[in-house]
């Protein structure tokens, strides 16, 4: 059986979705265990705060990819929609390029920050985890969103072409 790109993409989205569900469930369990242990065992879990915050950062940046795929990021499309369809499509293409540009800077900055943290060996206080592992999610997220952005751009160009043909 041939695996198409579409299948691969759907599998990728599903995989990240389950990773998100897993992360959130674990965060809930960690924070709740801390409350329980404080009241039942009279001892706070020093690592719970930091570990849960690290997982939260991963959750946010990985979730951002899925939100981008589903077009769920907060934004306004009412202003460009008052124009004729073809003009709207041009605006959408410009917006794609702007997002692509900002993602390349985020990617580059993310790489720099990750490398810096690993080189300095910066370790968080309560758990022996290097900060580099936290920043690592930023370039990963930006790289995957760059790919998604490119796919969206190709799709938007196709729509623009068909609009141009249909209108001519």
């Amino acid at each position, binding site marked *: 059986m041939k695996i198409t790109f579409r299948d691969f993409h759907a599998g990728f989205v599903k995989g990240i*979705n*389950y990773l*998100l*569900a897993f*992360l*959130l*469930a674990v*965060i*809930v369990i960690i*924070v*709740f265990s*801390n*409350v329980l242990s404080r009241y039942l065992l009279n001892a706070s879990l020093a690592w719970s*705060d930091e570990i*849960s*915050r690290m997982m*939260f*950062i991963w*959750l*946010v*940046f*990985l*979730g*951002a990819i*899925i*939100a981008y795929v*589903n077009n*769920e*990021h*907060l*934004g*306004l*499309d*009412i*202003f*460009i929609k008052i124009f004729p369809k073809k003009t709207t499509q041009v*605006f*959408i293409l*410009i*917006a794609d390029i*702007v*997002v692509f*540009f*900002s*993602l390349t*800077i*985020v990617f*580059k*900055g*993310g790489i*720099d*920050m990750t490398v*810096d943290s690993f080189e300095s060996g910066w370790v968080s206080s309560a758990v022996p985890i290097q900060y580099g592992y*936290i*920043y690592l999610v*930023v370039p990963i997220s930006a790289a995957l969103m760059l790919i998604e952005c490119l796919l969206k751009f190709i799709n938007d160009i196709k729509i623009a072409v068909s609009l141009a043909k249909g209108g001519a």
Partner: protein
Amino acid sequence: MLTLFLVVLFSLVFLSVPIAFSLIVTAIVLMFVMDSFSGALMIQNMVRGVDSFPLMAIPFFILSGEIMSHGGISKRLVQFSGSILGFVKGGLGYAAVLACMIFAGVSGSAVADTSAIGSMVYPIMKEKYDPEKSAALFTAAGCIGPIIPPSIPMILFGVIANVSIVKLFLGGIIPGVLIGIALMIGWYFHSKKMNYPSEGKFSFRNAIKSTIGSIWALILPGIILGGIVFGFFTPTEAGVIATVYAFFVSFFIYRELKLKDMPKILIMSSRITAVVMLVVGAATAAGYFITTAQIPTMLMDTLTSLSSGNVNLLMIYINILLLIVGCVMDLTPALLILGPMLLPLVLKNGIDPIYFGVVMVVNLCIGLLTPPVGTVLFVGCGISKIPMGRLARAIAINILIMVAVLFLITFVPGLITFIPNLVKR
């Protein structure tokens, strides 16, 4: 610099670039203009914005709300409200508002409140009352969600303004109840004019029965608020307790939640969280450079000279500005972009930041109902299948009622500060 910042940010937003990315590009432009470009510094600030234990309350309260609407808790709240208010003419309308108010005590988001209660009450209400007015009522009442504690926007404000989230929560109680009562008064005149039927005589037995049936849901607001106020747990921990509690009640007591629904609920909550938090991260990054560029000072000078030191006048200007922004911008970005810019001005004029935070949240909650961009209005349209234009017309009177309450709390700050001032911490 102020002009450049506003032009860049708003032209990108109008171009339909998502707000988080618009903020990132704005930060990049500001860095270039100040000749201090550093991608790493931007990312460091972005991650710093997300890396916050108080903000982790957001996914917890989103998750608890999702579990409660899937697990039969919101259904029981509606039954309970119906059993005690159904005997009045147009009683289901009051019941809808009451159910929204109680749900607001366990959920922190207007979208969650509107969809959880609206999807339960609307099918019954539309059979007996005018469908458009019914939808307009539950949609407006859902906006009480983030006003009565817990509240996601107030958590955000507490973090950006570095003020007590607990006090903000407490400050929202009276305004939230006032809006609920005001909406009920509006519904009273409407149902009197239309001569709506009641749901039959008040039955003490039914009321007791439904109270017992929904007791697990009814005590949760008390647990959350009491626990936070008396210092048993932080707002974030309250969120996790609400989540575990909602899961326990829906799964073991009501037995309406299925384990196979959980991945879907977790994924949905994670995605909503990521959308909100990416804006938080981007706004923190942009905010760092905005402050470095001294933009708040410039805005402060402009607004100060306009209001010539009169605090009431200043609050009127700010309220009008926020109402306009609220029409086109969602609550979260409006709060995160304008909050840090207005705060220095507010503090300089000796205005209590707790009071200001509550006014700002109530104001921007009204913005959730106003077209063209009204997130909660869209939810109301989705549930009722009424086109946006018609629902917007039906809801206009409710918006006016809420604006009236907004100005009441603006000019009588005691309504906000009374309860928080009772608490020492």
